[in-house]
């Protein structure tokens, strides 16, 4: 991708170079088949007349030059009068002109052109009256030079048919009048929209500098393009003294593009310069005005060059994409304005074309693009920020929810633990103590059946209390507890116990409730074995029944025992086993019988199901 980016840069560089050199590389077509008038008699208002070659420039010498309203008289022979009518075409005029043909006025530039300002150097074409006879003709060009520093310039003049002249005229008219008008219109539209942007965000440094730059540059653009309209001429001094301000604002704008706050001195200079210069300009002589005008232009060109330097630095070393976007065009503007200044002073023979008005709307369009990109970037970052915020919010919510659940469980556990402790304490001090007393009393009295009943009650109480303390995966602990109580019971009866839970798989989901169910089933199975078949030996073993079930066998070596003989107790056991998603099954052995309790390896949570 690097070569692609490089080729972009190279293409952009070539395009900028082409744009900069365009006016000097390309020359506009001249009329074909027309009479070229390149010699004239120059008649100053206060001096001797002389022969000059066209194009001819009247250098103002800072306003001290010859008379203000000179005339050119051109005499030529016309062999025949064309039927289609005869036209006079002047490619470049930069002053108000009046044309007379054989003493008859045929055109006044002021009334024929919309744009009449110091930056306009447009073409002019006029029809010669039809009452012509072949032979010697006389064309008089009166120039209103005025007190301006800009050199007055008259190009060579063409005389010919419309067909011969129109194309060249139209092209020049399009480029130097219409296109400039369009540029001004674009400048106006974009400038106003950028002023609006400033109103939306008045605190932004870039926007405020750009707004000031726009106001001043619009004012100057209107001034230099319409400035010779008599009613607008009053603006010209203001336009003139605002030119340095334009330069200062441009430097400030360039700094703001890079994100720097322009120095305060620049702001003060932009405000104070016109205020100081205006009275000087209004009261000064022509010479003073001319010197000031030249000084203004020098300041402006220098400011453009400084801005170009700032933006170049910003785009190369500061990595500013905005600076990269506009730096080339600002360089072109600097070059064009320097070139314009040169043209204005020297009036070179190959043409008097002022160009700086053309790139200005393009610059504004680029600035708009810059803003669009900034806006898109800020939308993007807004989206990203939103997204990040949403993710963070969701994370926090999840965290909070988890914390809440944890807290709730903790609280519930705490409450349960407190309750359990209270219950244990009560049972310990109260009920179990009383049962122990009853056992002792009935033993003393020889009341075997009461003693037995009290022992069973105490055993059952222990079953309940021990299971209260169980955590998940603590079924082996519950079973061990059960075994520890079973051992003395069976020993008293003379029954051997063969117990092993080593092969029992890990059972999860153990709660006091479902552990108690398993223990009760086992208790019942043992009671049955003792009651129905007088067993000598009871074996209890844990095992894996299938991938997700476990089994506990209770085998006795007493009488063979069938399910039908089970009766009520068996149904009870089955119901309990099924509550856990398990079952029981009884099978006779060669001697004795075997009860198998199957349970899932993951026990259901009975209290939760009940709650649902």
């Amino acid at each position, binding site marked *: 991708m690097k070569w692609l980016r490089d080729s972009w840069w190279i293409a952009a560089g070539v395009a900028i170079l082409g744009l900069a050199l365009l006016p000097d590389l390309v020359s506009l077509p001249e009329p074909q088949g027309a009479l070229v008038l390149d010699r004239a008699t120059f008649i100053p208002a206060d001096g001797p007349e002389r022969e000059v070659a066209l194009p001819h420039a009247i250098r103002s010498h800072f306003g001290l030059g010859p008379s203000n309203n000179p005339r050119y008289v051109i005499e030529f022979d016309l062999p025949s009068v064309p039927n289609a009518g005869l036209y006079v075409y002047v490619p470049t005029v930069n002053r108000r002109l009046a044309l007379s043909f054989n003493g008859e006025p045929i055109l006044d530039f002021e009334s024929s052109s919309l744009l009449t300002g110091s930056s306009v150097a447009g073409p002019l074409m006029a029809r010669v009256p039809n009452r012509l006879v072949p032979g010697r003709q006389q064309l008089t060009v009166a120039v209103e030079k005025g007190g301006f520093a800009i050199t007055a310039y008259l190009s060579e003049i063409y005389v010919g048919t419309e067909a011969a002249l129109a194309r060249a005229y139209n092209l020049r008219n399009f480029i130097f009048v219409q296109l400039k008008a369009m540029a001004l219109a674009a400048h106006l539209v974009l400038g106003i929209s950028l002023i609006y942007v400033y109103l939306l965000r008045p605190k932004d440094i870039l926007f405020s500098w750009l707004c000031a730059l726009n106001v001043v540059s619009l004012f100057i653009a209107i001034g230099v393009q319409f400035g010779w309209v008599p009613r607008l001429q009053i603006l010209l001094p203001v336009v003139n003294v605002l030119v340095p301000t334009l330069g200062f604002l441009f430097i400030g704008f360039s700094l703001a593009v890079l994100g720097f706050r322009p120095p305060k001195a620049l702001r003060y200079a932009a405000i104070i310069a016109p205020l100081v210069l205006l009275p000087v300009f209004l009261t000064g002589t022509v010479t003073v005005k001319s010197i000031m005008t030249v000084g203004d232009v020098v300041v402006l060109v220098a400011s453009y060059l400084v801005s170009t330097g700032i933006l170049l630095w910003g785009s190369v070393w500061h990595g500013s994409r905005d600076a990269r976007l506009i730096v080339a065009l600002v360089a072109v503007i600097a070059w064009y304005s320097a070139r314009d200044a040169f043209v204005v002073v020297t009036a070179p023979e190959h043409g008097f074309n002022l160009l700086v008005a053309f790139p200005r709307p393009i610059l504004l369009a680029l600035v708009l693009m810059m803003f669009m990109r900034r806006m898109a970037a800020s939308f993007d970052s807004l989206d990203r920020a939103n997204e990040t915020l949403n993710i963070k919010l969701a994370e926090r919510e999840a965290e909070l929810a988890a914390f809440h659940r944890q807290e709730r469980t*903790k609280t519930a*556990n*705490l409450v349960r*633990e407190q309750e359990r402790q209270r219950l*244990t304490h009560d*049972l*310990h*001090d109260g009920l*179990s*103590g009383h*049962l*122990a*007393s*009853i*056992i*002792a*009393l009935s*033993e*003393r009295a020889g009341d075997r059946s009461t003693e037995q009943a*009290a*022992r069973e009650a*105490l055993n059952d*109480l*222990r079953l309940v*209390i*021990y299971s209260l*303390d169980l955590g998940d995966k*603590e079924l*082996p*602990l519950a*079973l*061990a*507890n059960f*075994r*520890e109580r079973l051992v*003395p019971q069976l*020993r*008293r009866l003379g029954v051997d116990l063969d*117990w*092993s*839970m*080593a092969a029992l798989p890990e059972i999860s989901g153990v709660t006091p409730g479902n552990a108690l169910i398993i223990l009760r089933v086992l208790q019942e199975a043992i009671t049955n074995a003792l009651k129905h078949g007088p067993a000598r030996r009871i074996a209890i073993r844990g095992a894996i029944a299938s991938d997700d079930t476990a089994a506990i066998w209770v085998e006795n070596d007493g009488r063979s025992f069938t399910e039908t003989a089970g009766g009520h107790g068996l149904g009870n056991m089955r119901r309990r086993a099924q509550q856990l998603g398990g079952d029981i099954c009884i099978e006779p052995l060669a001697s004795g019988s075997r009860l198998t309790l199957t349970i899932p390896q993951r026990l259901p949570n009975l209290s939760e199901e009940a709650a649902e």
Partner: protein
Amino acid sequence: MTEPGANTGIIGFLGHVFSVRLGSADMKGAEVKQQIACRILLVEDDEPVRERLAKIIGRWSGGQLLGACGRLAEAMAIIKDHPVDLLITDLNLPDGHGVQAIRMLRKTYPQAEAMVISVLADDRNVLDAIEAGATGYLLKDSDPIDILDAITELLAGRSPISSAIASTIVRRLSGRAAKTDVAPDPKEVQSLTPREMDILWGIAKGFTYGELAERLEISKNTVPVHIKNIYRKLQTNNRSEAVYEASRRGLIKL
């Protein structure tokens, strides 16, 4: 007793056997006392139960019942005045707690043994007593044979342990290890040997003594010997009251 650090592997095991059978002064003393009849003090506030136990112990030729008290104060008075070899006490007494009697006994007669009478043998009560110095417990409703069995076993250096008590001890030891980064002062807490930890774990997991002996390749009869050693190491009478209380609270889950 033996050096706790040395009790590893077969040598450690042998060390245990020797220390219990031959080397240990208090075991020798206990065996001698048993021959000349062990002096037993019974403390139980419930009259029928006290009568029953007193009758069972009174009939036993190996023991001499010094007294059967219903109150802590009586028991303390007897401990003060008469040498006692074995104290069998209930924990909840009308004028105090059995643990107080156990601690006084261990202080007055360091060689004497103490047993707790509990109706439920629930882990917390029994562990409290063990920390005070008891090394065995009786169920109130046990048969006479079982009661005398438990007494003789204890005097022979063997203590019972239920899986519930074992699992509480395991939980407590791992909790203590997790709570304090610094190693406990060896003078204060004698640490359990790996073998003792294995036994404790095994019982807490629900293995029988037989299964455990097979797995650890030891004799079934030495399991209760190890257990008595564990109890002795858990005794906290050499610690201050505050530490005792703190550890007691730490014992409670949550």
